């Protein structure tokens, strides 16, 4: 007889006979006094960087104690975590020769499988929605173990507000607005990263966890106070239906060609749209311009129409009369679409 209180965990094993009756059930207490578990999984590195359109391998290595019975079927499952601890999105499950991928991951994911202890996940053709934290779970009989890996994407964060002006989006509007600019709502981590890179924006915007924040690198009175330290200011989690703010979107590399349409500089909005079409392209979105500016160093001091009716210009090399002090995407608002004042930025198939 053992004192069960000394056990790290107790296995109550039942001797099982073919016919189940009370009499033939014999309870055996197996005391597992050894510390720790016979199974663990690790991930090195625990953060992986990729880009939209690219591939990534999320590492997950299985470590199995000798004391575990051999040749048990292990089940590997990958899920994507969300901001709600109770909700995970299924990505892939595998056991033996059975494999299954789920939803938008179907056909884009497989296990690396370089050895029996390798549970690493390969994701191909990465989209902006793939950004986030993934859980590798391995089940081996009564044992199970998990590890979390982050998939980070190269990209750019940009603020967005609509023609109506500042603070007009509830959370659903914000999601739609980013989607229309070829982006997704940025995460708090992505905004923090952008702030480290020098982003300064004095209008509060939605982030993907439902919080509302804004990044300040040069503290000043209307933006949380002059004598406060620089940082990402936060309003905390806000009501997704009732509260209205701007939004911070995130976009990454795109598959296509972004360009200022040559030879035309004085167009109305409708003429601009037609001009892009004649060129075998469409009007570019705000996301296209930010991605080209930040990720490819696109530089052009000409204001041009974009698909949402705004007029902007991307300056990668600061110079007088464009953006004198810092690289920036200039913004001339949402002018009357009938004004024959601006050129146009188009987006077409890759050249």
């Amino acid at each position: 007889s053992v004192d069960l209180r000394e056990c790290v965990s107790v296995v109550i094993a039942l001797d099982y006979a073919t016919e189940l009756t009370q009499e033939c059930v014999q309870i055996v207490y197996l005391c597992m006094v050894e510390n720790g578990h016979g199974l663990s999984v690790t991930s090195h590195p625990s953060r992986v960087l990729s880009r939209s359109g690219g591939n990534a391998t999320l590492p997950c290595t299985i470590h199995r104690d000798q004391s575990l019975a051999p040749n048990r079927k292990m089940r590997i499952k990958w899920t994507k975590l969300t901001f709600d601890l109770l909700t995970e999105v299924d990505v892939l499950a595998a056991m033996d020769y059975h494999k299954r991928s789920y939803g938008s991951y179907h056909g884009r994911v497989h296990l690396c499988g370089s050895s029996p202890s390798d549970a690493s996940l390969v994701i191909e053709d990465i989209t902006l929605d793939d950004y986030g934290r993934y859980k590798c779970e391995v089940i081996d009989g009564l044992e199970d173990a998990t590890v979390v890996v982050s998939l980070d994407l190269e990209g750019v964060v940009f603020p967005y507000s609509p023609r109506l002006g500042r603070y007009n989006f509830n959370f659903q509007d914000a999601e739609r607005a980013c989607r229309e600019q070829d982006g997704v709502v940025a995460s708090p981590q992505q905004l923090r990263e952008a702030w480290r890179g020098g982003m300064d924006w004095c209008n509060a915007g939605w982030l993907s966890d439902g919080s509302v924040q804004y990044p300040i690198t040069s503290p000043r009175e209307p933006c949380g106070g002059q004598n406060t330290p620089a940082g990402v200011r936060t309003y905390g989690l806000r009501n997704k239906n009732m509260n209205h703010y701007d939004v911070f979107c995130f976009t990454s590399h795109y598959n296509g060609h972004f360009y200022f349409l040559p030879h035309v500089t004085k167009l109305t909005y409708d003429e601009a749209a037609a001009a892009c079409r004649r060129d075998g392209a469409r009007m570019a979105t705000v996301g296209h311009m930010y991605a080209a500016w930040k990720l490819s160093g696109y530089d052009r001091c000409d204001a041009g129409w974009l698909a949402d009716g705004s007029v902007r210009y991307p300056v990668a090399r600061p110079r007088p009369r464009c953006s004198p002090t810092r690289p920036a995407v200039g913004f001339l608002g949402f002018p009357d679409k009938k004004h024959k004042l601006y050129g146009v930025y188009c987006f077409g198939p890759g050249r």
Partner: protein
Amino acid sequence: MWLPETDPADVLNVNIPLQSPQRPLLGGTLILPCHFEVCVSPNIAPLSRRIKWSFITKDKVSTILVALEGEVRISESYLDRVHLVGYPLTPTDANIMISELRSSDSGVYRCEVQHGIEDNHDDVRVKVQGIVFHYRPIIGRYMMTFEKARDACTQNSAVMASPEQLQAAFDDGYHQCDAGWLSDQTVRYPIHDPRVNCQGDKENVPGVRTYGMRQLNETYDVYCFAEKMTGRVFHITSAEKFTFSEAELACSTKGAILATTGQLYLAWQGGMDICNAGWLGDRSVRYPINIRRPQCGGGLLGVRTVYLHTNQTGYPLLQAPYDAFCYTGKYISELVKYF
């Protein structure tokens, strides 16, 4: 070898047939049923499904137990108080019973069933209800017979705590160095740090000490149990503060009455945090602290009590200036109108 991939159909259904949240009482027992059905060929061994229960809070997910092939592994922290009700005699019975419920058992419970590549789960939210508190009347320490102790709890929106409830409060970290009546006519007190100079303490082990069954006319303090908040407790103040009778008046002008000690404990449990002491209906003066800070109750959490004497007896004088804690419920606001 690659078999063709198919999109999953819901071949494994897992269901906890309960409304969320469940509201069991502190110290009580909770049965969480979990049903599952597998739509595969019936000749699969019934015990080949892996059952896992876990407990999820804001900060973390912890395993309660795992069952497979007739074996059950219970995590250490649940060893004495959780078991599968019908498993493995009924291999599809994943119901669990949790006893000695503590406040810290409040959270989300997940029943997860895995069979081969398939898995599914269901969740239920549990909010363990009620709070145990120590009560000492204005007349001093160890002054209440069993009957007086029962009345004191009743007058403070509570009942006498049971030994199970005091034990659960102890398991949540409750510590009080004063012997008090419990509902079964025993006298006990919960001790975590036996080195503290507590009367009658002879051992070196933490635990709930008991004096055993006592005569009804012996006198002690009491441990009360308040179950749930029915109305709302709020704090009021003024520049000059209130005497006790001013505090009574100030509440009634707000359509309320002075809160009871039990109501203030429930409000504290609901998150109330006020760093100013206020009058309560029994003439005691207390304040609820949820955020640790040195200037409010010496950095300690809980409902802090202002005693008249340094040996923690007596209530402040009626003319002493304090804030007030008022209570209003539907019934109260109707009643106050007629004063």
